[in-house]
């Protein structure tokens, strides 16, 4: 088995709207991969933490 670690922050901004999606992985999030697999096809996350945020509403208070 190989291990693949994923960390960092990905954010998507829409023009005129602002942040519409944010995905954050903690530094210790890692996957266990079958042999000969690549990082483009991650396997099962073993330990770690992620936060996924999606814009669902916006307006004026």
């Amino acid at each position, binding site marked *: 088995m*190989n*291990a*693949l*670690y*994923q*960390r*960092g*922050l*990905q*954010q*998507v*901004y*829409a*023009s*005129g*709207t*602002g*942040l*519409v*999606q*944010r995905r954050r*992985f903690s530094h210790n*999030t*890692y996957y*266990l991969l079958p042999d000969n697999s690549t*990082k483009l096809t991650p396997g*099962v*996350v*073993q*330990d*770690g*933490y*992620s*936060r*996924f*945020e*999606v*814009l*669902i*509403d*916006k*307006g*004026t*208070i």
Partner: protein
Amino acid sequence: MSSFFRLLAAYRPWALSILALPALLAGCRHEVVVVPAYDNYFPVDVGTYRTYAVADSNWVKGALTVSNYQFRERVTEQFADAAGQPAYRLVRSKRPNSAAGWVDDSASVVQPMARAVVVTRNNIRTVALIYPAQPNKGWNDMAFSASPDTITSLTRFYGPNVAAPYTVPAAQGQPAVTYPTTVTTKTTLDGVSTM
């Protein structure tokens, strides 16, 4: 006509000055840098809010626990920072579901500038965006950090597609939405490394 030239000869110094005036003015012209209007990927208007569906995923020895809740960020005020530049306060609130009440969670400050958007959170200033957005363009999001070992590194990058459509997935009962003009920012090397 000849009287005109006699008059010009009489007032030759003045005439030369008048003729040279446009050239002098051109030499003293002040260059004004006009920043083009870029797509506004981080609008901040007092009184507006954005609500996010949040899913926290926690894995322990392969066992996944997911926690769902909501964040709301609202722009509560505009003020001038110590340098006199406009800044906006964002207050983040949290609630467990759409039926519950909001509870303020934290605050941050956003400063939209002509060439960048700077966000201050937990007393740390980070550069969220730079303008103009360009494919794979990198910058140092900790450019305002006092840490000398990170001050020169490129720590954020635009993705390969700029001003491209992007569809966010459905979440917490809300349908998927496609935004026609988006940019994606990411950590160095896609945030992925193999061990």
